[in-house]
């Protein structure tokens, strides 16, 4: 197995702590991300998937828990210099390609901003050359460097966002709903680009999305979140073919597929958190049902799931 690049241990992100309106956006989740893989994170809006991504990259300071990147705790006290080195390894691609690019900056300066901050280029000529290379990598023309963001379409802007993330040669990229704002035909282009870049540069992705069919396509493993908790985590194929947690089953049964015959016969499964009937002394934690497939469950449910998975 590849080495662990990122270890997330009992991460918590609470907002308005101690006030009446305290929100436990992320409430104690743990998972690992291995080098070179794509981990998909899915769930409904408000389940904390974006907050998880933002906390990992330290856009928020975690309330509790640890994010260990390559053996170093990200949230521990750090000098500016250490932080800078860390920032270079981890980059983010945002959801909204309209809001995430400064409309007053030229493409050249947007993409080169990271290069300047980390002192990766020595001369203006090298800077321009590097930006041109990056534009070509993401399928745009070098001539585009002198334009402003408003001159680009949504798909092209998302390519600019990807080029900016790649500029500092990161190892790990958090893609927060990178295709949600794009048209269907353009989504496929961007997803293919992300896949190609991963192969070329050996990147590791955390891919956050609510479009479950795209997530399955791009991810090696998938985590399902519900109300700030990770309820199921497993290899993409297994999770889709044998979902174990009732919430995952409900989520999967709600996806409309481009197949009228299937749609006519689709049965939607509802999910009621009360259906678990957890007793006060039940310990509800992540348990490994089959190798690599974790489910949030109580001891009782765990036994049941194990029994079912061996009989099937």
């Amino acid at each position, binding site marked *: 197995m590849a080495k662990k690049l990122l270890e997330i241990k009992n991460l918590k992100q609470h907002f308005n702590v101690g006030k009446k309106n305290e929100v436990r956006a992320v409430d104690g989740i743990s998972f690992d991300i291995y080098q070179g893989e794509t981990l998909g994170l899915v769930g409904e809006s408000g389940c904390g998937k974006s907050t998880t991504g933002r906390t990992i990259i330290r856009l928020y300071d975690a309330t509790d828990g640890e994010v260990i990147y390559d053996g170093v705790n990200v949230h521990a006290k750090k000098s500016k210099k250490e932080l800078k080195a860390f920032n270079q390894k981890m980059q983010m691609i945002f959801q909204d390609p309209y809001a995430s690019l400064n409309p007053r900056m030229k493409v050249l300066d947007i993409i080169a901003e990271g290069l300047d901050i980390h002192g990766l280029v020595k001369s203006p000529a090298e800077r321009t050359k590097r930006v041109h290379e990056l534009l070509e990598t993401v399928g745009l023309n070098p001539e585009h460097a002198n334009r402003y963001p408003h001159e680009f379409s949504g798909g092209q802007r998302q390519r600019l966002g990807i080029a900016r993330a790649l500029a500092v040669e990161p190892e790990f990229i958090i893609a927060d709903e990178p295709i949600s704002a794009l048209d269907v035909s353009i989504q*496929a282009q961007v*997803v293919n680009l992300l896949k190609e870049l991963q192969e070329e540069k050996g990147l590791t992705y955390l891919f956050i999305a609510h479009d479950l069919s795209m997530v*399955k396509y791009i991810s090696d493993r998938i985590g399902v979140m519900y109300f700030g908790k990770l309820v199921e985590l497993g290899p993409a194929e297994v999770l889709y073919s044998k979902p174990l947690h009732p919430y995952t089953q409900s989520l999967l049964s*709600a*996806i*409309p597929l*481009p197949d009228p015959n299937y749609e006519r016969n689709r049965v939607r499964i509802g999910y009621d958190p009360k259906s678990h009937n957890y007793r006060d002394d039940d310990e509800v934690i992540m348990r490994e049902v089959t190798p690599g497939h974790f489910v949030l469950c109580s001891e009782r449910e765990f036994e049941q799931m194990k029994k079912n998975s061996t009989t099937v």
Partner: protein
Amino acid sequence: MEKIIEVKDLELSFHTFAGEVKAIRGVNFEVFKGETLAIVGESGSGKSVTTKAIMRLLPESSTEFKNGQILFDGKDLLKTSDKDMQKVRGKEISMIFQDPMTSLNPTMPIGKQIMEPLLKHQKLSKEEARRKSIELLSLVGMPQPEQRMKQYPHQFSGGQRQRIVIAVALACNPKLLIADEPTTALDVTIQAQILELMKDLQKKIETSIIFITHDLGVVANVADRVAVMYGGQIVEFGTVDEIFYNPQHPYTWGLLSSMPSLDTTEEKLYAIPGSPPDLLDPPKGDAFALRSEYAMKIDMEEKPPLFKVSDTHYAATWLLHPDAPKVDPPAAIVERMKKFPGSRYYEGSAGGGR
């Protein structure tokens, strides 16, 4: 079957600083009683503009109707006066918009907003309108409708707000309901609930629906018939089975193959290259030709007419011309066609659905 609305040769342009945007370039379709017609296409393909033209919601200062008719109830909506149009909107034809966050008035209790069309169009007394509103709220599945009447939009979740919008739209039992991406802003589980609700209500009140979306999964779920729009034109239309299992236009092929199905395993996703055409200067021939690997010389020169595939299925592509070379669609499409009796790849009744 009874035709509810008929759009004939609709052509319209917007005048902008950059020039004339030819947003709709000859669109024809009709909607029958009780059916759902889905219009699919990318942003900028003209699907929303078409329906806004039906509702006459386009800015008059910059919109120019160049040609065509929209026949509803025997009259041409394009020639109807503003005053008469107000009697149509919300009563005969109503609309559900994409964003439930902005289509309700934040300063008004929701009860008042549901009562509005009832008071205006049906001339009910306040007490009657109130009772009818409560009925409507329970019809769309809102718990405790009476208490909820006094609450404001911000006190509801996105899915609940869309339910309220549907209640407002259905208040006067419209003959035609236009739903412009009604579930795009919602989560999948909520989306499934809203779609079920709409289908349920359609059965109850026998309204016809024009459903606009770019999500082919949703189309497969709700539609009886489908029209595929590209570059301001309808490039293919047919029953939902014909479009999904026997598509003929290369753009429809592209759309269907660029969506990963849950059981795809192929390494690379099919992507339509390039981006949609610029309607300031629309291409001369087939608007999709520049992005199509199936384009022929004639596609660059002459716009293809609608070729008949079956009585209900038409597609605007030169590939259907008797003299055109026989090409094979992408593999994923051939797979789909194998299931469809009447397509040239049909393999008997072996598989059936999943």
